[in-house]
Every structure is written in C-alpha cells, then in structure tokens.
C-alpha cells in the first residue's frame, strides 16, 4: 500500500507520513451524477463502519462567499479566477481534508484539482502553471472519472428537471450567445479535457451513462478493492 504524498511541491510544514485515511475522488462534468453517487457511497461506507467526510469544490467557509460574490460580478480575469479557486482548495485541504485523513477518515471528494485543470485549460490558462499551483494537493488513493458522452449528458440533465445555468454553459468564454449551443460546445470541451487527463492521472473510468444503480455497484466494487 502506497503512503500518501503531495502532487508536486508540497507543504514543507505539513507531515503527511502519518496519514491513515483514504482519499477517494469522484470526478466528472456538471450533471453527471456525482453527488447522487457520493450520497449513496457515504451511507454504504458508514454502514460498513468507516468514518466518512464529504468535501466539495468551492465550499470552504473562508472563500465560498467571496467566490459566489465574484461569480455574480463576473469581472475577474482568468488568472485571478484560477488563483482564487486554488485559495479555496488550499483552505479546504489544510483545514478539512488533511486533518480528516490523519484521523483515519475516508474522504469522498466531489471533484478535485482535475476539475480546475479542465476548466482553466479551456479558458487559456497555461496547463503546466496550474498544475504547479496545485502542487500542494494530496495525491488521491483513487480517482473515479464518471464518463459520459455529450448526448447522454444533455438528456440526463433535462430528464432530471434541471435547466442550463450560465456557468455550466461556459457563457463567460463567449462560445455562443445561445445558452443551449454554448452548453453543448463548452461541455464537449470539458469532456475532452477529462478524457485527455485519464492517462496522466490514472483515472478509473466508470461509464456514467448507465443507470445510477449499476454505476453505483461498479463504484462500490472499485472502492472495496482499495479498502
């Protein structure tokens, strides 16, 4: 079993050699069903007797409000945005994820740095720079990539009664004035980014176009192997 380590240049003042928990990341684009899966997995793991902590993307108590404020204003340039998300992640990593892992919890992360890599890359930010910025991230024990094609993604979203929102359609980068068209173009770019990262980061691909129940049994199987 490998011991936990930092992605690149880590946190020199944090000792991670005593981490006993597991970091499991569920990645995938908007509306692919990550949160539904995490909910089921959390309960399943808790019934098995494991301590579980969920963490999301841009939900830290420190920066969550600032990010919401900026998203409403939509005035920042791409680098500022990228750095702001990294600040939020750093806050969650050090105040929530690392302490939980050190206490032996299983941390289920709804998105991780790969989401940032995908989103910032389609916005023209240097991919090597952003990877170095996230160098202090803990390498996950398992990254599950919920993979879906654009056609299935569209159907799934409308079937679940949701509507397309501004950010999920990538309207900020001006691919199209039409919300639907922009959504299709933007999500296609994002899916392509995730596909391209599969080998680089050793993603475990799970076909997310299937019924949530059968997706879930695949996820449980993968996690059982790890535990």
């Amino acid at each position: 079993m490998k011991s936990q380590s930092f992605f690149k240049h880590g946190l020199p003042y944090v000792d991670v050699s005593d981490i006993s928990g597991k970091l499991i990341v569920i990645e995938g684009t908007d509306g692919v069903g990550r949160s539904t899966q995490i909910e089921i997995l959390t309960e399943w793991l808790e019934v098995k007797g494991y301590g579980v902590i969920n963490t999301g993307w841009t939900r830290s108590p420190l920066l969550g409000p600032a990010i919401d404020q900026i998203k409403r204003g939509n005035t920042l340039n791409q680098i500022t945005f990228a750095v702001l998300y990294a600040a939020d992640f750093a806050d969650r990593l050090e105040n929530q994820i690392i302490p939980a892992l050190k206490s032996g919890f299983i941390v289920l992360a709804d998105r991780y740095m790969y989401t940032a890599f995908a989103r910032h890359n389609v916005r023209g930010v240097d991919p090597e720079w952003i990877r170095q910025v996230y160098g202090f991230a803990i390498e996950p024990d398992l990254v599950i990539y919920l993979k879906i094609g654009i056609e299935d993604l569209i159907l799934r979203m409308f079937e679940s009664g949701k509507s397309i929102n501004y950010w999920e359609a990538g309207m900020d980068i001006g691919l199209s004035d039409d919300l639907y068209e922009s959504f299709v173009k933007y999500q296609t770019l994002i899916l392509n980014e995730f596909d391209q990262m599969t080998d680089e980061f050793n993603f475990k691909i799970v076909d997310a176009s299937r019924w949530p129940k059968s997706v879930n049994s695949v996820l449980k199987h993968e996690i059982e192997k790890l535990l």
Partner: protein
Amino acid sequence: MLNLMEDHPYPGKLFIVEGIDGSGKSTQLDLLYKWLISEGYSVFFTEWNSSDLVKKTTKKGKKKNLLTPTTFSILHAVDFADRLANVIIPPLQAGMIVLADRYVYTAYARDVARGVHSDWVRNLYSFAVKPNISFYFKIPIDVSINRILSGRASLKPYEAGMDVGLSDDPVTSFKMFQTRVLSQYDQQIEEFGLTVIDGDNPIDKQQEIMRNYVKNELKGYDQYHPRMIAAETKELLVEKDTKSIVHQI
C-alpha cells in the same frame, strides 16, 4: 509562463520597491513619486494587498485563525493577479509610469519565511510583469526592529509572524521572523537582479541614488509621452494585452 523573467512589452515603466518592514522603502517611493510628478510625468501608484475582496477575506481568516501559510500566500496572489490586470497593466499600456510599494518579491520572501515551498511560490507568481527596476532597500535587522518598535505601541500578530510559532513573545517572534524574511530577500538579489540601496544611508542620499537609476531608465522614454501615445495605440495594445495575459502566463 515566464513573464517575470522577460522584459515587458508595454510602453510604460514599472518601478517597484522592496525591503523588510522599517527599511524606509515607502518613504523613498513617496519621494520618487513627488519628483516624477514635478517633472511632468503621469504616474500611477499601487501597493501590496490592497483590494477590498482580499482585505475582507484575509481579515475574516485572521479572526477565525483559519489561515494556513499556503492559503495566506494564495490569497495575496489573488489580490496581486487582480491588481496586475486592472491597475498595473492598463497604465503601462497607456505609457504611464507605475510605482508599486512591494511586489512579488515580498511574497517570495514572506511566504517562504512562513514555510511555503520556494519553487511553488515562484511558479504561483510567474505571470507577473517584470519591473523595469526593482529597488531593494537593505538594512540590518536591528535597525528595522528599532524603527518599527519605536514607532508604535504593539505589533500586529501576523506582522510579528506569530502564526509561524517561532516564539510566544511578539517582539522575539518579530525579530526571528524578520530575520528569516531578510535572508529570503538577500537570496533574491542575484536571482531577480534587484537593485540594492543601502537603507542605512541618509534619506536624501538614498533618494539621489534612486533618482539616478530612474533617470537612466527614462532615457529615450519621453517619446512615449502618455498623452500622445494613449490615443494612437490604445486599441492595439488592449487587444495585445488580453492575449498576453491569457496565453503567455
């Protein structure tokens, strides 16, 4: 993403000052500002850590004692990225002189003194525009401490580096922390070609040296008088800049 190591493409000039607290850099920059204005230049002034968003968040974090060295470092980078795009690059595009009280070298010194990885923080800020001249006001640690301590009743906890846990006594902690910061500055002199000014010299003497460097840098600059070029090349430069920010980082 090596902007910081390459000369910038803008018609304006960027002069920045660095140094530990109490080095006299702000006094010197203020004198330079007044002189440049009196010479008829268009000058824009900016300082470290000044945006509302980051001030609010930093304050909140400090209050809750939530800020880790890395979060603290990235928060400053947010502020800097925002200021770079909104208040530093546009005046440079317009051909103005921009003066900055502290720049990325402050982060390289302070954040590493707080414990973050030096290569990591160097990469973080590598999108910054390289200044035309970076003045580093170098003073012995004791002079800095005496100036700071005689000027005020108490030290702010973050200023004293209390979060680093060097000592429970603010004054001892401040001394130890500033010593670390100073050593990080010294390491950057060669790495980034900082122009060292002896901060122990009389104020007017330092200012004279500083103005000589600036005069030299401004040779041939008059042709780019801001009021003349602003109108002619504004559109072109705006387009160029948007690209450079996104793609060159």
